[in-house]
C-alpha cells in the first residue's frame, strides 16, 4: 500500500516500469497479431475493420504509453536525481500525480475495447475529418492521449526544475552526465510541444461531442490545418522518444569502454540542436497533403539539417570505442545494436525526407520499416539496454549474463528479420495499413512474419531472465565500475533520498583516469 502513496522517485520509477512494461507487452501482442494476418494474401484471421482497429490500438499504446513515457518516466525518474546528486526530484507529489494520470490515460485507452463500436480505427494520428465521423470510440482514445500528454508535461516540468535547482555542489552544467542532458533537451520539448497536441485533440473532442466544426469541411473547417497542428507536436515528439535513448547510449558506452566519451560538449550541443531544429520540420509528414512547393523545399532542407546532430552523436559513440578496453556485457550489446539500427533508421529517414523519393515511398511499408528501426530498434533497444544496465542498482541483484546475451542475440536477429523486409516491400510499392496485399509481396511478408516469432522468442527469454534475476546472486554496489554518482555514491538498491549526505562533485562525469582508486575511495565512505 505504501507504494501507492509514495513520493520516492525510485518507487515511482518502478511503478512506471511495471505499468509501461505491461502496456508494451499488450501492444507487442497486437503487433504479432497483425504479422500473423499478413502471413499470406487475403483474409486470414482479421476483418479489415478489426485490422484497422488493431493497428490503431497498437500505435496508440506503443506511442503514448510506451515510447514517449518509457525512458524518461522509468529511467529518468530512477537515475536522474542520483546522476546529478539530488535526494529526489523537485516536485515529488507532482511526480506521483503524473503516474496516476498515466495509469488513468492507459486504462481509458484500453477501455475503448470494451463498449460501443470498439477502439478507434483512424490510425494513431486521428486525422480529421475521418476521426470526426467514424462511429468507433475516438473521443475516449483522444481523451486518453490528452491525459497522457498532461502526464508527460508534468514529468518534463519536474525534470527541468530538478536540473536547474538540485544539482549537487560542484556539478556545473558541463559536469552533468549526458543522460541528464538528453532529458533536459527532451523535457523542453515535452513542455513546449505537448500543449499544442493537447488543444488539437480537445478540438477533435469538441467537434465530435458539441458539433463545433473546426476541421470537418462540411462544418466549415480545414482538415489540412489539423495535420499541421497535429505534427507541430508529433514531430518534436519523435525526439521526445529518441533523445533519452541517445542519452542512455551515451551513459552505457563509456562504462564498458572505460574511457571518457568522445566529444562530450558536442554531444550536449547536438541534443539541444535536435530539440531546437526538431520544432521546424513537421511539414515533412505532409509532402503529399497539398503544401506549396516553397514550403516543402524548406521543410526538406530543415529535415536534412536535423539529421546532422544525430549523425554527430553516432560518430562520437563510435569514436569513443576507438582504443578503449571494451568489455562486452549485455547493456553494451544493446548500445551497439542501438547504433546499428538507429543508423539504418536514420538513413532511411533521409530517403523519406527527400521530396522526390518521398512521393514514391509515402504511405508504404518503407515508412513502417523506417520508424520501427528508429523507435523499436533505437528506443526499444535502449530501454532494454537501460534495464540491463541499472538492474543491479534497482534490485541489488544480478541477472544471468549468459542468458541475457542469448536473449539479446535472438531478439536482434528477429528484429532485423521483421523490419528489413518491410523496407524492401515499401520500395516495391506495398502500401501500409492494409490487411491484404498482392501475391508478389508474399515472400517478404512471410520472412517478416517468421521474424516476428523469432523476435517474440527473444523477448520472452529476455523477460524470463530478468524476472529470474530477482532471485539471482547479490550484486555489489558498482558491478560495472562506473564513475557516475548513481553508482559510486549510493547503495544497491539505494536508500531513501539516495545519499548519506549530498556529494560534492570534483570530477567530470566520464573521467576514467585512476577510476579504480576513485571508486574504492568513495566506497569506503
Amino acid at each position, binding site marked *: 500500500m505504501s507504494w501507492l502513496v509514495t513520493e520516492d522517485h525510485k518507487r515511482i520509477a518502478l511503478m512506471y516500469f511495471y505499468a509501461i512494461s505491461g502496456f508494451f507487452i499488450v501492444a507487442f501482442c497486437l503487433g504479432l497479431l497483425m504479422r500473423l494476418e499478413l502471413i499470406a494474401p487475403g483474409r486470414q484471421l482479421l476483418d479489415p475493420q478489426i485490422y484497422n482497429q488493431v493497428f490503431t490500438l497498437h500505435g496508440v499504446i506503443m506511442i503514448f504509453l510506451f515510447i514517449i513515457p518509457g525512458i524518461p518516466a522509468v529511467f529518468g525518474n530512477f537515475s536522474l536525481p542520483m546522476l546529478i546528486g539530488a*535526494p*529526489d526530484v*523537485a*516536485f515529488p507529489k*507532482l511526480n506521483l500525480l503524473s503516474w496516476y494520470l498515466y495509469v488513468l490515460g492507459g486504462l481509458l485507452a484500453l477501455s475503448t475495447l470494451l463498449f460501443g463500436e470498439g477502439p478507434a480505427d483512424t490510425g494513431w494520428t486521428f486525422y480529421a475529418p475521418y476521426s470526426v465521423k467514424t462511429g468507433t470510440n475516438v473521443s475516449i482514445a483522444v481523451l486518453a492521449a490528452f491525459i497522457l500528454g498532461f502526464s508527460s*508535461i508534468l514529468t518534463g*516540468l*519536474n525534470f*527541468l*526544475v530538478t536540473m*536547474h*535547482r*538540485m544539482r549537487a555542489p560542484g556539478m556545473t552544467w558541463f559536469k552533468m552526465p549526458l543522460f541528464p542532458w538528453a532529458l533536459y533537451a527532451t523535457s523542453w520539448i515535452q*513542455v*513546449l*510541444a*505537448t*500543449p*499544442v497536441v*493537447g*488543444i*488539437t485533440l*480537445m*478540438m477533435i473532442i*469538441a467537434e465530435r461531442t*458539441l*458539433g*463545433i*466544426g*473546426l476541421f470537418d469541411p462540411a*462544418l*466549415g*473547417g*480545414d482538415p489540412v*490545418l489539423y495535420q*499541421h*497542428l497535429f505534427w*507541430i507536436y508529433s514531430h518534436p515528439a519523435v525526439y521526445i522518444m529518441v533523445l533519452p535513448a541517445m542519452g542512455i547510449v551515451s551513459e552505457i558506452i563509456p562504462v564498458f569502454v572505460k574511457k571518457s566519451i568522445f566529444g562530450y560538449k558536442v554531444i550536449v550541443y547536438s541534443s539541444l540542436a535536435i530539440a531546437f531544429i526538431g520544432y521546424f520540420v513537421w511539414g515533412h509528414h505532409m509532402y503529399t497533403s497539398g503544401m506549396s512547393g516553397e514550403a516543402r523545399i524548406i521543410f526538406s532542407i530543415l529535415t536534412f539539417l536535423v539529421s546532422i546532430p544525430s549523425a554527430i552523436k553516432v560518430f562520437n559513440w563510435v569514436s569513443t570505442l576507438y582504443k578503449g578496453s571494451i568489455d562486452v556485457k549485455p547493456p553494451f550489446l544493446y548500445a551497439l545494436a542501438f547504433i546499428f539500427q538507429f543508423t539504418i533508421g536514420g538513413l532511411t529517414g533521409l530517403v523519406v525526407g527527400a521530396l522526390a523519393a518521398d512521393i514514391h515511398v509515402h504511405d508504404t511499408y518503407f515508412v513502417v520499416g523506417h520508424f520501427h528501426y528508429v523507435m523499436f530498434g533505437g528506443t526499444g533497444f535502449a530501454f532494454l539496454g537501460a534495464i540491463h544496465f541499472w538492474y543491479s542498482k534497482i534490485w541489488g541483484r544480478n541477472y544471468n549474463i549468459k542468458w541475457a546475451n542469448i536473449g539479446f542475440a535472438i531478439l536482434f536477429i528477429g528484429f532485423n528479420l521483421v523490419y528489413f523486409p518491410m523496407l524492401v516491400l515499401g520500395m516495391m510499392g506495398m502500401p501500409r495499413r492494409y490487411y491484404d496485399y498482392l501475391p508478389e509481396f508474399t515472400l517478404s511478408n512471410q520472412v517478416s512474419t517468421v521474424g516476428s516469432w523469432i523476435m517474440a522468442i527473444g523477448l520472452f527469454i529476455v523477460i524470463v531472465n530478468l524476472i529470474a534475476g530477482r532471485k539471482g546472486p547479490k550484486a555489489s554496489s558498482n558491478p560495472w565500475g562506473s564513475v557516475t554518482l548513481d553508482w559510486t555514491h549510493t547503495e544497491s538498491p539505494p536508500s*531513501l*533520498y539516495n*545519499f548519506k549526505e*549530498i556529494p560534492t562533485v570534483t570530477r567530470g562525469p566520464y573521467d576514467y583516469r585512476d577510476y579504480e582508486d576513485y571508486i574504492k575511495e568513495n566506497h569506503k565512505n
Partner: protein
Amino acid sequence: MSPDKDLHDQMIHFDPYGKKLGMWLFLFTEFLLFGGLFVVYAVYRSMNPEGFHLGSAELDLTVGAINTVFLLTSSLTVALSITALQKGNSKLAINLIMITILFAFAFMFNKYYEWTMKFEHGLFPGMGHFNELPVGEKQFFNLYFMMTGLHALHVIIGAILLLVVAWGIKKGTINQKRYIYLENGGLYWHLVDVIWIYLFPLFYLII
C-alpha cells in the same frame, strides 16, 4: 512516516524559487495550449475575413468591455494581496483574494448572459439556422465558443486555486515567510487575465 520526516527535513530544503520556476514552465504550456487556437483563428480569419466581420458585429462590445475591466481590476487586487501578505497583513490578503474571486463571479455572470443571448439567436453549432450562415461566420462562432469557453474554464480553475490559497492563509500554512503559493496562484490568475486581453480585441474590437 515520522522517522522519515527528520531525514526528509535534513535532505530536502524548501525552495520557493524552484516552485516559481515550475509555475512559469506550466504557464508556458498554457500559452501554447491557447496558441493552437490562435493559429486556427489566424488561418480561418485570413481565409474568410468577411464572415469574421459579420460574426464580430453580432457580439456586444459593452459586455466585453465591462468584462475586460473586471479582469484587469481583479489582477490588481490579487497583486495587492501578495504585497499585503508580504507585509504580514494576512486578513487584508484574504479579503483582497475574496474581492478577486467576486470579480471572477461577475465575469462568469456576464459570460453566462452573453452565451444565453447567442443561444436565443440560434448562434450555436446545430441550433436554428446556424448551418445556413456563411462559412466564415460559422468559423467565427465555432472559435468564439471554443476559445471563450476554454478561457472561462480557466477562470473557474483560477478562482478555485485562489480559494484554496485563501484557505491556506487562514490556516497559516501560507504566511509572511512562505507566500510562494499565493504568488503562484497570482501568476495563474494573471495568465487568465493576459489570455483575455488577447481574446477581447480578436473577437470584439477588430471588425
